[in-house]
């Protein structure tokens, strides 16, 4: 996998490999992360993201490869010598120390003089708005408060790199939404480079500037959230992020500015060329929200217009979700927002409907 | 990490020197000949003749009285067998008494459980020898129990309770009961009692559910408890000394007598080695089942 081309990396991993006995947990991962950006490692459990994070922190040593932070190879350095700090998934607050001592812990190990220590700890606690709780012990705080202490503690030493391990995993949904923005604000305010690990794509898309999608130890795609969402590089990424409809077929037309793929559902038109051989097997990915649905045949639509029967309907409050069975038997996912009350409520099960999408909605995937 | 070698090394060295080495010496001594006043043992290796002087007689004399004596008729064999039987009975009695005890504590409310456990352990924290000693007083011919039985009219003459099998077993069960209860408790308290509810739901009676579900699930605790009682009680010394008579000689006492009264250290060593061999299998059973659920002494 090629590193991100063209940017001077602040944190660079060069072909990092981690092998545990027989199992290959991280397979030649090369990444280049810019200073000050929030970068997410996204994937389901077992994809290697946590192992990679632990290697960045220093709790695992790479089997081979280099890890460069500001040009310095830190791969063999023990965690207590690295200018890197981590916020743990379980927060890992020291239960026998109060909040103030928890935050001060790292600074004390540095030999920070008393006055400066006081000032910086106070600064950190104010940053996360827990100044009044300084003398409380972790078990006297709620989950959200504990998380803020963990964050303050990990920022106290002004690390060059901040690592977040599933930062929102322990919080319930409502709290999660609130905290996502708070976290980003604090991190951007401090200006520290941040690598986070998560299995939740929403979390990654909201919080990170760029995302690396990982599977089976390899990085499949690196890019900004919209790039990954709109232009997934392969099936796995397309399917992993959000929902997607995949149409397998063969490239039937390929011009500079448009192409077409012959699929089981019919001919699908795409508004850009792919420079591939004719008849090569490809798949077209179309997101459910890009498909429109109606009981009446729409006028003025040519291309990418198909029909089917509604098999399932689900109401999600802000949008409707339909599962439509096309004439070839394939089930298509379609979502439509509820822009006015009782919109589209005239569509019901077993209705014959038309569905269509613009030729700019689909993405051609080669594998 | 260099620290790692130190941390592992210190306890390892201690154990090798004070646990492993003594056993090697024990084995060694069991093969040498008894010596004179200055040297308690003859050497194992005759430097002049270059011959290994293994005295197997130490072992053979355990099994037969003389070169032509009948096999397995010795005092030693008797006391080994007796020890095994006593230990077995003690373990079983502890199981029968201790299992329901542990079960009912495990099923009590969490606050009560702690109090009950403390009440169980409190006697344990007071000297065990004193408590065994007390039984001497209770069971003697002029002791409380006999007076009570006479008063109630069960008997007219005081019963011979002391220095019998009965007093021995009471003493043994008394001392070893917590060692059975604790591993059982540790196991039962972790059990999910909703499994029983599921069984009731499917039509099983409480009695059946107990035998088909609770007991099998507590198997590790039962084995751990049995071994924790059986193995040490086989070599029990204090209880037979205080509450047992001449007929109740157990192997622990025999080893002592051989060491300090007959002054035959090699044979005492041989007896001890044999005891080790006998408890080897039960010990392996314990390590397999008990190490995770074993008593933590609280």
């Amino acid at each position, binding site marked *: 996998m090629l590193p991100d081309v063209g940017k001077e990396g602040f944190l660079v991993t060069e072909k990092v490999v981690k092998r545990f006995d027989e199992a290959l947990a991280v397979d030649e991962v090369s990444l280049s992360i810019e200073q000050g950006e929030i970068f997410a490692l996204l994937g389901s459990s077992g994809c290697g993201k946590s192992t990679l994070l632990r290697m960045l*922190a220093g709790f695992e040593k790479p089997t081979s490869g280099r890890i460069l932070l500001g040009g310095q190879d830190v791969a063999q350095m023990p*965690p*207590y010598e690295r200018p*890197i*700090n*981590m916020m*743990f998934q379980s927060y890992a*607050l*020291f239960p*026998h120390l109060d909040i103030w001592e928890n935050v001060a812990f*790292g600074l004390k*190990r540095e030999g920070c003089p008393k006055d400066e220590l006081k000032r910086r700890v106070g600064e950190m606690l104010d940053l996360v708005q827990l100044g009044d709780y300084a003398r409380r*012990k972790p*078990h006297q*705080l709620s989950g959200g408060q504990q998380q803020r202490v963990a964050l303050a503690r990990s920022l106290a030493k002004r690390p060059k790199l901040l690592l977040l391990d599933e930062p929102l995993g322990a919080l319930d949904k409502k*709290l999660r939404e609130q905290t996502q923005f708070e976290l980003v604000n604090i991190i951007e305010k401090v200006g520290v480079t941040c690598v986070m690990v998560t299995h939740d794509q929403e979390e990654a898309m909201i919080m990170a500037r760029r995302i690396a999608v990982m599977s089976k130890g390899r990085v499949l795609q690196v890019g900004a959230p919209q790039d990954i969402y709109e232009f997934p590089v392969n099936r796995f990424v397309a399917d992993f992020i959000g929902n997607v409809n995949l149409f397998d077929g063969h490239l039937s037309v390929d011009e500079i500015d448009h192409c077409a793929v012959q699929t089981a559902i019919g001919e699908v038109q795409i508004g850009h060329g792919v420079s591939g051989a004719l008849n090569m097997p490809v798949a077209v990915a179309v997101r459910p929200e890009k498909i429109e649905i109606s009981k009446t045949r729409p006028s003025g639509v040519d291309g990418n217009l198909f029909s089917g029967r509604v098999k399932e309907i689900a109401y999600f409050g802000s949008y409707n979700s339909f599962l439509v069975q096309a004439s070839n038997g394939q089930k298509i996912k379609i979502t439509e927002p509820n822009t006015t009350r009782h919109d589209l409520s005239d569509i019901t099960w077993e209705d014959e409907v038309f569905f269509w999408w613009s030729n700019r909605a689909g993405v051609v995937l080669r594998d | 990490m260099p620290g790692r070698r130190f*941390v*592992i090394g*210190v*306890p*390892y060295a201690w154990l090798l020197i*004070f646990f492993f080495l*003594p056993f090697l010496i024990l084995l060694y001594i069991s093969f040498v000949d008894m010596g004179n006043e200055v040297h308690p043992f003859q050497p194992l290796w005759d430097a002049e003749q270059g011959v290994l002087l293994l005295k197997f007689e130490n072992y053979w004399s355990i099994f037969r009285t003389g070169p032509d004596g009948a096999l397995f008729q010795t005092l030693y064999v008797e006391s080994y067998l007796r020890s095994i039987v006593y230990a077995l009975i003690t373990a079983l009695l502890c199981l029968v008494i201790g299992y*329901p005890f542990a079960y009912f504590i495990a*099923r009590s409310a969490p606050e009560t459980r*702690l109090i009950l456990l*403390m009440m*169980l352990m409190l006697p344990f*924290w*007071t*000297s*065990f*020898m*004193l*408590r065994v*000693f*007390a039984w*001497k007083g*209770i069971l003697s011919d002029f002791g*409380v129990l*006999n007076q009570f039985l006479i008063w109630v009219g069960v008997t007219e003459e005081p019963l011979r309770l002391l220095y019998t099998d009965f007093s021995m077993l009471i003493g043994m069960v*008394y001392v070893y*009961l917590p060692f059975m209860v604790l591993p059982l408790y540790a196991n039962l308290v972790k059990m999910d009692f909703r499994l029983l509810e599921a069984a009731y739901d499917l039509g099983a009676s*409480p009695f059946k559910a107990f035998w088909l579900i609770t007991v099998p699930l507590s198997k590790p605790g039962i084995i751990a408890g049995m071994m*924790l009682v059986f*193995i*040490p009680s086989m*070599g029990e*010394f*204090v209880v037979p000394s*205080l509450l047992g008579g001449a007929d109740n000689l157990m192997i622990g006492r025999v080893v002592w007598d051989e*060491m300090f009264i007959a002054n035959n*250290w090699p044979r005492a060593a041989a007896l001890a080695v044999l*005891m*080790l061999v006998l*408890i080897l299998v039960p*010990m392996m059973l314990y390590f397999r089942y008990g*190490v995770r659920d074993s008593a933590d*002494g*609280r």
Partner: protein
Amino acid sequence: MTNWLNKHLGKVWLALVFLFLYAPLAFMILFSFNSTRQHAVFTGFSLRWYEALLADTRIVEGFIVSLQVAFVTGLLAAVLGTFCAFVLVRYQRFWGRTVFSGMATAPMVMPEVIIGLSLLLLMVGAQNVFGGPERGLITIIIGHTLLGMAFAMVVVQSRLQEVDRSIEEAAMDLGARPHQVFFLVTLPNIAPAILAAFLLAFTLSFDDVVITLFLSGPGVSTLPQVIFNYAVRGINPTIYAAATLLILTVTLFVVSYALWVARSTRKRQREMAQALRGGA
């Protein structure tokens, strides 16, 4: 019927077993105040046995010796036990791990006669080779420590396994070197278990008879030794007085410890409930 049995069988059984367990204790306490040597009939209240107890130098000396031995044993056993627990919990793979684990736990199960005898042989051998140590306090302490260490290890091990490993990683991440991690983070969190281990080893040592008998030398007697020598000879109510004092002391400690634990648990629960109500 089954319901009544279910409800009350438990309590009945518990009561009977507790009766069995406490009968000797009650007996000794009662008869320590008896005015005569009789141990079946209570002839009258008297403190004569307590007087005799305090006057009996052998018992008093034995008590002091036992305290000293038990204290040193407790410390050694707690330290070594913590080492063993740490090794077994933190280091999953090292050469001879099963052997180590076996050696550390075996004294807990083994008959004391075997331990006593083999240690005695070691001491005698050491005397022949090195000229020491003399049988006495040191040899007794070594024997007791071997036993106490096994129990101490189990206590500390169980607590160590509960401690969240990530706090140790967090400490390292924040700049603490491995030995700092142990003393600043791990140790404070297992301290209660180490204290419990000390107390357990102390009790086992204070109470030990068999290993002591094998390993002690002339002129040194622990309290159990003294009592054992009295006990094989016959009934002596002075012993009951000693027992009563011991029971009272232990009960005092156990009850106050239980109350302290209950109070701090309640306090902790209150604080946690407050935190939850206080909001995020």
